[in-house]
C-alpha cells in the first residue's frame, strides 16, 4: 500500500518521496524510543521491512561459509528423524516406521522452531547491545526478527513433512485447517517468548545459562519422539501437564489426519494468554532499563 503510494508520487516529476509529509511523520514517530511498551510492539510490527531484512541476513550469514549452505538445516533435520526412527521405531505403538517418521517430522518441526525461539530469545537484547545503543528504534523489532528468522528455518523443512504425509497417504480433510490455528499460536508464543526471555536474559546472565539446560529436559518431557497416546504412568502425567505437548499436538494431529482434542485447545490457548501477559509485564518493566543493562 505504502509502496504503491510512493511510486505514484515518483511519476509526478517534482515530487520527492522523501518529502512526503505522511512518510516523514511516520519516520518521526518510528525513530524515537516509543512512549510505551504497547507502542513499542505496535511500531515494531510496522517496521516489518526492517526485521524481515535482518532475519534474512541472519539466515544467510549463519550458513554463509559452509558449502551446503542452507541445506544444512534440512540435512540435520533429516538426520535426527533417521536416528529416532532407527532407535525408537519399533517401540512406537501401532505405527509403521513410515507413520512414525511423519509423526516425528511434524513434532520435530514444531519443537525445533520453539526451542530455537526460546534459546535464541534469551539473547535478543543482551546479544544486540551494539544495535540497542546505536538506534532509538523500538526494541520489539528484535523479537519479531527472532520469530521470522526461525520461521524461515522451519519453512525449509516443511517440504519434508509434506512428502512424508503424501507417502503415508494422509487424506485431505477439513481437519487440515487446524494447522492455521497452530501457526497463529506458534507465532504469538514466539513473540511472547522473545520478549519474556529476552527481558530476563538482559537482566541476568545466569538465565541465559539455565535456558538451554531446561530446554534439553523439556525435549524429553514432551511427546515428540515418544507417543502421546500410548504413554502411561508418569509419562502420561508429564505429557498432560506439559503445555508444549498440547501446542505440538494442535499442529501435529491435523498433519496425521486427525484433529486436536478440546483439552489440547484449551491448554494451548490458556498457555498462550499466560505467556503473553507474562511477556508484557516483563517487557514493560525491562524496556526503560534495557539500554543500560546490555
Amino acid at each position, binding site marked *: 500500500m505504502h509502496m504503491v503510494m510512493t511510486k505514484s508520487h515518483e511519476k509526478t516529476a517534482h515530487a520527492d518521496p522523501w518529502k512526503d509529509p505522511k512518510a516523514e511523520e511516520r519516520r518521526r514517530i518510528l525513530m524515537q524510543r516509543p512512549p510505551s511498551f504497547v507502542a513499542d510492539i505496535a511500531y515494531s510490527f510496522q517496521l516489518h521491512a526492517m526485521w524481515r531484512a535482518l532475519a534474512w541476513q541472519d539466515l544467510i550469514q549463519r550458513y554463509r561459509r559452509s558449502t551446503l549452505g542452507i541445506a544444512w538445516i534440512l540435512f540435520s533435520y533429516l538426520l535426527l528423524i533417521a536416528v529416532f526412527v532407527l532407535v525408537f521405531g519399533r517401540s512406537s505403538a501401532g505405527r509403521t516406521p513410515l507413520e512414525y517418521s511423519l509423526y516425528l517430522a511434524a513434532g520435530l518441526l514444531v519443537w525445533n522452531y520453539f526451542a530455537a525461539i526460546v534459546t535464541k530469545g534469551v539473547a535478543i537484547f543482551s546479544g544486540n547491545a551494539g*544495535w540497542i545503543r546505536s538506534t532509538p528504534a523500538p526494541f520489539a523489532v528484535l523479537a519479531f526478527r527472532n520469530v521470522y528468522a526461525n520461521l524461515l528455518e522451519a519453512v525449509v523443512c516443511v517440504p519434508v513433512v509434506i512428502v512424508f504425509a503424501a507417502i503415508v497417504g494422509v487424506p485431505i480433510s477439513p481437519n487440515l485447517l487446524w494447522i492455521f490455528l497452530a501457526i497463529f499460536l506458534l507465532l504469538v508464543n514466539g513473540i511472547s517468548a522473545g520478549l519474556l526471555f529476552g527481558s530476563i536474559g538482559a537482566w541476568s546472565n545466569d538465565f541465559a545459562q539455565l535456558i538451554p539446560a531446561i530446554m534439553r529436559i523439556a525435549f524429553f518431557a514432551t511427546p515428540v519422539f515418544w507417543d502421546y497416546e500410548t504413554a502411561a504412568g508418569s509419562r502420561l502425567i508429564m505429557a498432560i501437564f506439559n503445555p508444549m505437548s498440547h501446542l505440538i499436538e494442535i499442529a501435529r494431529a491435523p498433519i496425521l489426519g486427525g484433529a486436536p482434542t478440546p483439552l489440547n485447545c484449551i491448554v494451548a490457548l490458556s498457555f498462550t494468554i499466560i505467556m503473553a501477559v507474562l511477556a508484557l509485564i516483563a517487557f514493560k518493566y525491562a524496556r*526503560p532499563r534495557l539500554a543500560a543493562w546490555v
Partner: protein
Amino acid sequence: MTHLRLKNVGFSYPIRISQGIKVNSDDDRIELGIHGRARRFQVLRDLTFNLEVGDRVAIIGRNGSGKSTLLRLLHGALTPETGTLQREGKTDALFELNLGIRPQASGYQNIFLGGLMRGYTKPEIETRLDDVIGFADIGDFIHLPMETYSAGMRMRLLFALATTFEPEILLLDEWVSAGDAQFRKRAQKRMNDHVEKAGILVLASHSATLLRDTCNRALWLERGRIVAFGDLEPVFTEFDAVIQKGTKPLPS
C-alpha cells in the same frame, strides 16, 4: 521547531553484582552497595540546557567525563533516569564505527539496513543510493563485506549514511579521527550545509581545530556535570587553560 531541551537530566549505569569489585574510592559518582562493592556508576548528573536551531555545539571534557553517554541520551538510544529530555526533530548519529552495522553484510546491503532502521522504505532508499555511494566514495568496496573495510572507509560510509537521511539533529562522536584531509573537507561542508538547513549539530571531540572550524558553542563536561556552557571561544579557552595546559585550577 527543532530543539533539544534538557532539565535536570541524570543517568547511571548499573554495575552487576557478579562483576562487583570492591573499591576504595572517594569518587562520588560510584555508588557502593553491600560490602563496599560498586553497584552503580552515576555518569551524568543534573544537566540542564537548551539547544535551538543553528546551534553547533562542541562537547568538550576529559576522557570519562560523560560525553558519549550524553550524546546517546540526546540521540534517544538511552533514556534519562531522572529529569526530562524533550527532543523535537529527526535525529541521526555517528558514534562508534562498529555499532549499528552488520560487518558480514556488504556496504551496499548496510545502506539498505541503515535506511530501514531509520524508517525509510526500500524504494525510498533506492532514490538516494547514488548519493550515499557517491559521497562515501570507496569504489568497489561497496559490494564487499564491511568487515573488510579500513576504519577510514567505514567512517566514510557511516558518515554518508548519517547525513543522507536529512536529520534535523546530527550527533557526532570523535568521528574525525579516521578521515583523511580530503574527506574531512567534504564532511565539513556537508555538516555546514546541514546546519544551514535549520538544524542542530552536536560534536564531541578533542581536536581544537575541528571544533573551532565547526562549532559556535561549547558545553564543557567534568565528572558528569556541566562546568560551562556558552560561546565556543571563551569556554574553550578556559578549558584549554585548565585541562590541557594545567595552568589554572578547575572552577568549582
